[in-house]
C-alpha cells in the first residue's frame, strides 16, 4: 500500500515536526488515522459490495464487515474505528489521546488496512463465483 497523504501527515504530527501544530496533534492524528481506515474500507466495499459502500453511515458498514471480511478482521477494524472516533470527538471530562496510544493505534491501522486490501485479493474470487 502506498503511503497516503493522511497517514504521512499523521506521522509528521506524531514526530512533532509540523510548525504551528503545537499541542493540536493528538486529536488531529486520530482523525487522519480514522480517515485512512475509512478509505481502506471504502476500497474494500467498492470492490466487495458497492451498494454497501455507498452508505454514508459507518456503523452498518462495520457490522457487515464481519460477514464479508471474516469475524476477526471485522472485530479489529470495528475496534480501531471506535477507538479513533472516540479520540477524535470532544468528550466531556476526557482529554486527548496520548502519544503511546496513538502509536499503538497507528500500528494496528497499518495491519488492518493491509489485511483489508489483501482480503479483496484472497476472498474476491469466492464472492464472484
Amino acid at each position, binding site marked *: 500500500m502506498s503511503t497516503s*497523504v*493522511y497517514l*504521512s*501527515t*499523521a506521522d*509528521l504530527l*506524531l*514526530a*512533532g515536526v*509540523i*510548525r*504551528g*501544530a*503545537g*499541542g*493540536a*496533534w*493528538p*486529536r*488531529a492524528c486520530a*482523525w*487522519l488515522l*480514522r*480517515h485512512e481506515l*475509512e*478509505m481502506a474500507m471504502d476500497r474494500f466495499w467498492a470492490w466487495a459490495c458497492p451498494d454497501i459502500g455507498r452508505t*454514508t453511515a459507518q456503523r452498518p458498514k462495520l457490522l457487515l464487515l464481519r460477514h464479508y471480511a471474516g469475524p476477526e478482521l471485522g472485530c479489529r477494524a470495528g475496534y480501531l474505528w471506535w477507538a479513533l*472516533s472516540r479520540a*477524535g*470527538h*470532544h468528550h*466531556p*471530562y*476526557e*482529554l*486527548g*489521546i*496520548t*502519544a*503511546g496510544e496513538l*502509536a499503538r493505534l497507528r500500528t494496528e491501522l497499518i495491519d488492518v488496512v493491509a489485511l483489508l486490501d489483501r482480503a479483496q485479493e484472497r476472498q474476491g474470487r469466492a464472492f464472484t463465483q
Partner: protein
Amino acid sequence: MNDTLVLYQELTHHLRHAATPHAAADLVLAAFHGDQTLDAVLAGESLLPTPEAAEVGGDTPQAFLEEIRVAGFRGIGQPVTVGRLPKSRLTVFVGRNGSGKSSLAEAVEYMLTEDSLRWAQRPPAFRDGWRNLHHRSAPEIRLGLRLDSGEKVTLHRTWPAGTADLDASTLTTTRDGMELPPGQVSQWTGNAARYRPFLSARDLERVMTAKPSELYDAIAPLLGLGPLREADARLQRRRKVYDDRVKAVKAAFTELREQLGKVDDDRGRDALTALGTQAGRANLTRLADLARSDTAASEEHAAAAARRLTEQELPDLGPALAALTDAETALRTATGTDSGAAHRAAELLRGALDLHRDRGDGPCPVCRVGTLDPNWRTAAEEEVTRLAAAAEAVRAAQQAYANAERAVDRLIGDIRRLLEPAAAALATHLPTQCTAVRDALAALGPGPATWDRVTAAHADLVTAATDWLAQRYDAWREPGAAIRRWVDAATRVYADAPALALLTQARTALDKADKAIRAERLGSFAAQSNRVWQKLRQESNVELHHLRMEGTNNTRRVLFPAAADGVETNALAVMSQGELHALGLAVFLPRACAEASPYRFVIIDDPVQSMDPSKIDGLAEVLRDVALTRQVIVFTHDDRLPEAIRRLDIEADIRQVTRREGSIVEVRKTCDPADRYLDDARALVAADIPDEAKYLMVAGFCRSAIESVSMDRYRAAQHHRGTPYQQIQDALGGIHTVKDRLSLGLFGRIVPRPELFARLDRDHGTKASRTVQAVAKAVHGDRTMPVAAMVANTAALVSGLR
C-alpha cells in the same frame, strides 16, 4: 505579625485571664524568652516587658510561585517552562496520565523538600526513576518565587549531565539577581516539610495509611505551639534539678534511718528520734548537734570517765610501800631488847647524879660498895648522855614510821578516788574489768601484793576503756558524717522550697494556657477542615465532627469522630475511598494554607481521583475559596474539574499538558476547550500540510469546538434547572454526532434536522447551518467550504452559542 510574638501575646493574655500570680506568670514568660532570661528571672532579676523582635526571629516572608522550569526530571525531557502563574487565583493543569503534569508537581516538591512523598515510602527502584532518559543534557529544576516584599527569589537546582545520583545536585539561590552564599539561604525555605504546600494523592491517603502518631505529628506543628513546649521543657529542666534534690533527700532519709537503726548506741537512737518519720519534719538543729558531738547525753559520763582513765597516770604506791617497810625495820632495830633497860639506867643515873649533887661524895645507895665521887660523876654523866642519844634515835624511828604510814594511806586514798568513780561509771559497759578493779581496791593495803593486783586490774581496765572509746568513735564516724551530709542536703531543699513551688505553679499555669491556646487553634483548624468537608461532602451520609488530637508520646493520635446516618462512629471506618480522599483534603488543605506558612501557594496533584462527580463541584468551590487568599495550582488527569470550574463560573487559569514521544512535554494555556480547538484550527490553516489532510483536521477542530460549546451550554442549562448531575452526564453520553449535540445545546433535546438548521440560521446568521453541515461532511472527505472561512464561521457560531 510574627508568629512567635502572636503566641507570646496569646500566652500573656491567657496567664492574665487565669489570674496567674505575678511571680509564676513572669517565670512562664521568662521561660518562653529562653534559657538566659529564665535563669536571670530565677536569680531574682525582673522580666523585660516584651521580647525583642530579634530575640524571637524576624517576620516570615510570603512566597508566591511565579515560574517553574523543569528539564530532564522524571517524565519531562526537554526543558518545560511554566510561567506567569497568576498570583492569587486558581491554575489548573490538565493532562492525561503520563503527560508529565505530576512530574511538574514533583519537581516543585523535590525542589523545596529534597524529597518526595511519592518516593519516600516506596522501594528504591521508584526513586531511581527521577532521571529522564530522553534527556541527555544536565537535569535542572528552577523555581521563580516572588516574595510579598516584591523581591524575586530563584531557586535553581542542577545535576551534572549523565549522573544517576539524585543527591548529586547543587542548589543556587538568587535574590533579586544576586546569588546568595549557601549559608544565607533563608530559613523559611526549609519549612516546606512542615506546611507541605503539596498535596499529592499520597498525601491525601495519609489519613488512612499513616500511623496515628504520624498523623498527629503532621498536624501538631501547624498549631505553632512549639515555643510553649520549649518553654515548658525549660521550666521542667529547672524543676527537675530541685525535684531531684528533694528525691535525693527523701531517699537519703530512708537510708539514714536504716543506717542509724544499725548503730547500737544511744547516739543512733537520739538521731532517729531527731529524724522522726517524715523527712520534712526532721529536727535539723538537733541532728546537726548530734553529728558534731560524738557522744550521746546518756553516755557522756561513762565516756568522760573512760577518757580520764586513759589520760591520767595512776599514782605509784610502790615506793611509798617500800619506804614504810624501811621505816618499820629501822624502828624495830632502834627499839631492840635493851632499849628499856637503857632508858631505866639513864633514869637511875640521873637520880644518882641528883643525889650526888645534893649530898656530895658518899657511898653508892644501890650497891653500897662503890663510892659516889667526882670521878664517878664524870663517868655517870657521860653514860647518861650516851643513853639519851640512844633514846632519841628510837623516837626518830618512830616518827619516820608514822610518816611513811601516812604517805601510804594518802596514796591509797588518791588511788581509790581515781579508780572507784571510773569503775562505777564504766561498770555497765566494762563490767568484768570494773569488778576486778573494785575488788582489788577493796583489798588494797600496805601489802605490796595488793598493790600489784590493783595495777594489773587498772591496766586491764585502761586497755578495755581505750578499746571501748575507739570502737564508739569508729561506730559513729560514718553515721555522723551521713547525718551531716543529710542535714546539709535537707537544709538546701528547705531553702529551695519557695523556688520549687514557684516553678511548679509556673508549669501548671503554662499547661493551662497551652491547653486553652491549643483548643482555640485546633478549633479553628478543625473548623476549616469541617468547612472543606461540608463542601466536599455533598451527598455523603457521613457527617464529620471536629477532629481531635489526643494523647501524648506514644499514644498520640488524631481522631475523626463522625456520624454515619446519625450513628456515632470513627470516620475512617465508614468512609469510602472517595470520601477518605475528600477527608484527606479536608485535613491537609487547611494545613497547606496555614496562616503561618511562608508559602502562599498550594499545589494539589490529582484531587479528583475516585471522587463522585457531585464531589467535584464541591472541590471546585473549595478551591475557589482557597484561591481567594492563596495561589492554588491543581494538576488533574481529566476534564471534570475544569468543566465544573467553567460551569460554576469560577475564575481560573486552565492549562493543558501533553507529552509526545521522547518526553517532549508541552503546556498550553486555555480558558475554554472551544477556544483551544479554534486556536488549533487556525494554527492548522497556516501550517504546511497537504490540503486533504489539512481540511480533515481543520474541520475536526471546528466540529470539536461546536460540540464542546454545545455540551457546556446544555450542561449549564440543565444544572441551572436542577437536573441531577448523573442524568446530565447520561444524556450527553448517549449522543455522538455534532448535529445532535448542537440540538441538545440549543433545544435541550434532540430535534429534527430542519428545525435545528432553521433555528441556527434564525439566531446565528445564514452561514451557521451551512458551516455545521460542511464540518459534519468533512469527516468523510467532502470539502465544501474553504478552511479559513470554516474557522471564521465556526468562531462566530461558537461565540453566538456562549
